[in-house]
């Protein structure tokens, strides 16, 4: 359901969308069923002359409850268990596992700009050839990246909707995670945690490039201000 609105740009995007699709099916079923019963009851038992409400004493209520409330209740319990299993598997896949990264990129959020530190030619971070850019992240499609996320001042949230990636950046903490781009293109990076007056004006651009384009970019990194409004 989500891919209709937002492309699946990373390896685990399809798993998150699958979980959302499963929950969507279940919740829509229950929602329509219960609303249907509600409106049917309203129509069926509307006040009509000569029609009197029935009185269910405790015994009758109990029988009715066992038949009509307990069964759907158990089915909901099953649905919940399915949702929990789905949620935990997807969460473990995305947040708990950390596959060996081909490259590490450092993301530092600050009041109203993103600073990306790419590993540069040698593929190693904290070496002389690192490329530091502002509000512009260049990655190669198909490569597994691990990111080190930090913040300078307040809470921010590193969010790439197309990757289904979101992780809050907390000042004083370094939070790691991973993503593996699967489609080429130019996408949005948003801040998902309110960080003051400029929260709405700190967009960054994500460039997922083919291996050749990426190598070309590393050779002579474009002037990172190309995008700024």
């Amino acid at each position, binding site marked *: 359901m989500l891919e209709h609105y937002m492309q699946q740009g990373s390896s685990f995007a399809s798993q998150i969308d699958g979980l959302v699709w499963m929950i969507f099916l279940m919740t829509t079923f229950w929602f329509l069923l219960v609303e249907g019963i509600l409106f049917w009851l309203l129509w069926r038992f509307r*006040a009509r002359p000569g029609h009197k*409400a029935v009185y269910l004493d405790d015994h009758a209520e109990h029988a009715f409850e066992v038949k009509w409330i307990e069964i759907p209740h158990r089915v909901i319990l099953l649905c*919940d268990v399915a949702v929990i299993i789905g949620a935990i598997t*997807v969460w473990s896949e995305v947040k708990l596992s950390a596959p060996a990264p081909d490259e590490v990129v450092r993301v530092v959020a600050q009041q109203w700009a993103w600073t990306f530190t790419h590993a540069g030619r040698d593929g190693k971070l904290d070496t002389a050839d690192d490329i530091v850019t502002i509000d512009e992240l260049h990655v190669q499609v198909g490569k597994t990246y691990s990111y080190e996320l930090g913040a300078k001042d307040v809470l921010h949230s590193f969010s790439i909707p197309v990757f289904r990636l979101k992780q809050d950046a907390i000042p004083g*903490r370094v939070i790691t995670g991973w993503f593996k781009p699967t489609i080429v293109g130019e996408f949005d990076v948003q801040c998902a945690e309110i960080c003051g007056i400029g929260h709405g004006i700190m967009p960054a651009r994500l460039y997922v490039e083919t291996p050749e384009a990426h190598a070309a970019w590393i050779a002579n990194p474009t002037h990172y201000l190309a995008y700024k409004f």
Partner: protein
Amino acid sequence: MAETHGHEAHGHDAHGHHEEGWFVKYFWSTDHKMIAKQYLLTGMLLGAVGAYFAYVFRMQLAFPNKPVPGYGLVTGADYNALVTNHGAIMIFWVAMPVLIAAFGNFLIPLMVGCDDMVFPRLNRLSYQIFLVSALVLAASFFVQGGAFGGAWTSYPPLSAKAEYSLTDLGPTLWLAAVALEFVAFLLGGINFVTTAMNSRAPGMKAFDIPMAVWMIVIASILFMCSVGPLVAGAVMLMFDQQVGTGFFDPDRGGDPVLWQHLFWFFGHPEVYVVLLPALGFVAEIITTFSRKRLFAYRTVLYTTIGTGVLSFFVWAHHQFIAGIDPRMANVFSVTTVLISIPIAEMTFVYIATLFGGSISFRVPMLWALAFIAEFLMGGVTGIFLGASGADIYFHDTYFVVAHFHYTFFPIAIIGTFAGLTYWFPKMFGRHMNETVNKVHFWITITCFNGIFLPLFVLGAAGDHRRIFDYGNFPELSQPWMQDLRVFATVSLLIMLAVQPLFLANFFYSMFKGRKAEANPWKANTLEWQCPSPPPHGNFSPLPEVYRGPYEYSAEGRADDFWPQNSPT
């Protein structure tokens, strides 16, 4: 308010009260009914302020960077302040005072059959502290630097350091207002719980207590047991702001995540605190208007208590991706999805109450049914956010905004209108105009869905919260998304346009409405067994209770209701 206000004959009271002066009667009263009206009117006034904020920032979202009529140009700082205070006002200064304090004060003494709250002066004091908190909040808009703009959750370091929020006094005044509001509701809660536990009418056993009283009492208990850590947190945050301590400052040994835990430990029980009173009103209304016994009273009670207890175990689903240890997220995801079970059972039991009834669609019943229908949508969309895997995408998007408006709107607005239209004859002794209310009902409900269904779609498309201008994000400024934002804003405009219709009907009928008899809806609970509006001292003599509150359509009786206090 004019002297003819409801209390025509100031009948002799059980206490032989001396004649009160005009000021004492309306502003210094210790009568639980007058204090209820004070809370109600303050809540409605602040509801108007909150709605005005919603109007301004929705206009900015629909027509970015154009001056909003009635406000002017909305900058980033303005937008954050408007969004922050819309949230804070609607939860702390509209939902809680109206649902818990106004209806709690009015209904608990009447429904348990006693003459007033156990501590009348403490009751008056808690309203006065609440009023001061509202004034302090109002002051926070006019201080140098502007109002606080760090979201109603006020996460530090943004809310703790002036150089980050660029508002130096606003956050402290905002925090002081919230802390005062907590004190007011702690004192009020003690009154509600003690009155409901101790001063029940003779013969009223535990399962004879109407569901509305049970719900308001459980809500107060949830509030009193959950607000503590946040009061401590507010003291710590205020010292961080003004004195310069480093409780939440990472550079000085503090930890911002501690505030998130302190806040949400209170935050989630808080949403059940405002939910339960609305559920209580709906229980009273659907039983009265379907002339039928509340289905499985004990199940409703036990699931309410179960939901209340479980609500203390779920708070970190607000922080799945906020930097808590990812392994904790699995624990809280399990408890969050499991909490849908007691709520689902309660909804089924409410719907089962309609089975076999003879349902008359008067205005209170329309609101109560709309509550069930809309709240189902809110509950169902909560599963997406409770599942940790799916929350990665949906966290802090408009999907979350739409979800919690599908729970808060039924609670605060639909629940309040249901309660108001149901108990208006008892509160003011007169009837409101039915047709005007029905027009208001249908427009408000359709427009409400018109506002928030598009927001679900926008949230799924990646729209993030609290961003005042989507022009900077190419993916979010596609034409179809902007059309949805305009559609939502237009729906809001129509809904706001119809509210004065209800307010006019409300204030006009208060003095000029058709006279109401003691029991217009033919209900069983005790508040309908005393004159409308109830005189000082409520009952003379105080009632005895012989049966449960929902004995409608009992076999072998002429009329289809059986008041709790009638011996036969």
